[in-house]
């Protein structure tokens, strides 16, 4: 038993430490950028899965990132708040808006809810474009400061002027987010979400406030989107209304679906593979969208459970073949 725990800690330790070591071996601004995107996509796809856990399909992540990005930017630029406080508030505001908007719409079932969330993303973009006094319109906001340095006098002085340090930062955000998401999923709240997904009227009948909890799931998922949006604007030092539009949101959905929303690791795998792989085949850059769509279609039609369902599927196919052979013999 102790040995198993040791192996468990060791393997997860290595998995955790490994991403921190990557910049030691592979360097270059472009590579770092891709690494940052990968980590962001993992947060986004995993938090989208939390919403999915309660039986809802959300396409509001792009809108929530935009809200997060503008919130953190404006708080820093206009009010001079600490970037860290601003980042947290960005997440919270996204969560609050998700809660407010989610409430009237949560009664809509299945894809109808998804449609409304598409709409939400579009509306956020529109507002960012039109509310010129605040957002400077379609032009966007530039020269956003990078996150404030973390300084403990005499001991620590981490600045975020280099991209590599931004990568470390987002990596830490990802680890914290994943731990939180995992904890939520394996708590009673997570159990309740999964129950609602399977049968919301039965859950309601044993006392679950299904509407409220669905809004809660939506809200928590959007919190992470808000934080990620805030981070990205600080890292790239700019934000425009259409940075995270409908297509951006769709990509997050694709990471989750291709990876498989049934397991915690699914969206992580999906985001990792689908962000890294197109970069590996960069000469074919122009075919990237087709690659994306192709993989998505492949998964939709042939692997309903996504990549994480592949081992199980191969097992059943192998089992069937084996059985057939036995029957023939």
């Amino acid at each position, binding site marked *: 038993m102790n040995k198993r725990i040791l192996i468990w800690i060791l393997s997860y330790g290595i998995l955790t430490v490994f991403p921190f070591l990557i910049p030691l071996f592979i360097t270059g601004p472009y590579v770092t950028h891709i690494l940052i995107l990968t980590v962001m996509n993992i947060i986004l796809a995993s938090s989208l899965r939390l919403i999915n856990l309660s039986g809802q399909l959300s396409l509001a992540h792009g809108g929530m990132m935009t809200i997060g990005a503008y919130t953190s930017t404006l708080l820093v630029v206009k009010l001079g708040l600490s970037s860290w406080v601003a980042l947290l508030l960005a997440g919270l505001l996204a969560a609050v808006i998700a809660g407010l908007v989610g409430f009237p719409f949560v009664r809509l079932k299945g894809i109808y809810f998804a449609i409304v969330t598409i709409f939400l993303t579009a509306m956020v973009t529109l507002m960012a474009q039109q509310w010129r006094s605040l957002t400077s319109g379609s032009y966007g906001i530039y020269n956003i400061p990078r996150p404030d340095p973390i300084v403990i006098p005499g001991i620590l002085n981490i600045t975020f002027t280099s991209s590599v340090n931004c990568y470390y930062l987002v990596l830490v955000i990802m680890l914290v987010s994943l731990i*939180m998401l995992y*904890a*939520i999923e394996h*708590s*009673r*709240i997570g*159990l*309740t979400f*999964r*129950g609602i997904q*399977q*049968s919301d*009227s*039965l*859950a*309601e*009948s*044993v*006392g*679950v*406030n*299904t509407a409220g909890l669905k809004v809660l799931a939506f809200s928590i998922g959007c919190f992470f989107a808000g934080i990620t949006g805030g981070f990205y604007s600080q890292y790239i030092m700019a934000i425009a209304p259409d940075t995270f539009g409908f297509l951006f949101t769709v990509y997050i959905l694709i990471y989750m679906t291709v990876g498989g929303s049934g397991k915690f690791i699914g969206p992580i795998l999906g985001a990792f593979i689908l962000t890294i792989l197109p970069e590996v085949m960069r000469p074919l850059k122009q075919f990237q969208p087709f690659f994306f769509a192709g993989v998505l279609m492949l998964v939709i039609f042939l692997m309903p459970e996504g990549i994480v369902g592949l081992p199980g599927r191969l097992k059943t196919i192998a089992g069937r073949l084996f059985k057939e052979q036995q029957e023939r013999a």
Partner: protein
Amino acid sequence: MLKIEGLTKHFGGLAAVSDLDVSIGPGETVGLIGPNGAGKTTVFNLVTGFLRPTKGRVVFEGKDITTKKPHYLAGKGIVRTFQATNIFPDFTVLKNIVFAHYLRPRISFWETVCHTQSSRRKEAEILQRSHKILELVGLEPVAGTTAGTLAHGYKRLLGIAIALAAEPKLLLLDEPFSGMNAEEVGTTMQLIDRLEQRGLTILLIEHNMRAAMNLCQRIVVLNFGKKIAEGSPEDIRENKEVIQAYLGAGEVIA
């Protein structure tokens, strides 16, 4: 305990339930019977808050609960089962019951996320209670099975067990025997008997008239959404109108 007064529900132009009065005292087992389409399930949906009545009131323990939501009513002790097999198919049998303990004992959000001492104690308690319920309904041997793969009769029993886990004062059972074979009907009847002895108040929808007559002290017969008879099983058995509603004509099977 429960009082239904002038309950009416229209769907479009058609009245599914009209002007229904029923009252149930504490500890009583009342049967709600009637042919298919008589409006029995609609009554359930109205009492448990899944539907809003067009007219009329539902009073529970002296309080008007007519417009309350199902989850609120579950908290007050009104719990129902569903006619179509209704379980959480992806959970194990045990987890179905653990889930159904949602309301009691309360564990706060932070307690569960942070795994505090008290939450662990409460969770152990829930687990213990869940096993007790499984023993009561006889599902303990399949506690670890994924609910979706159970045989039909077991699924129906699990549906009742889920309702019990919510600790009802008033239990509404919607055709608990449908699709069960004779043996399963027997065990389920024994189960309901035991629940009655424990003092649970039960409102039972049943198509199976013999089962309803064996279990209930009082029977209310619905046809076309209206109450056509009410009384002891003996009265109901003799009632001309009931026989006619049920069988089309009295003389065929006398």
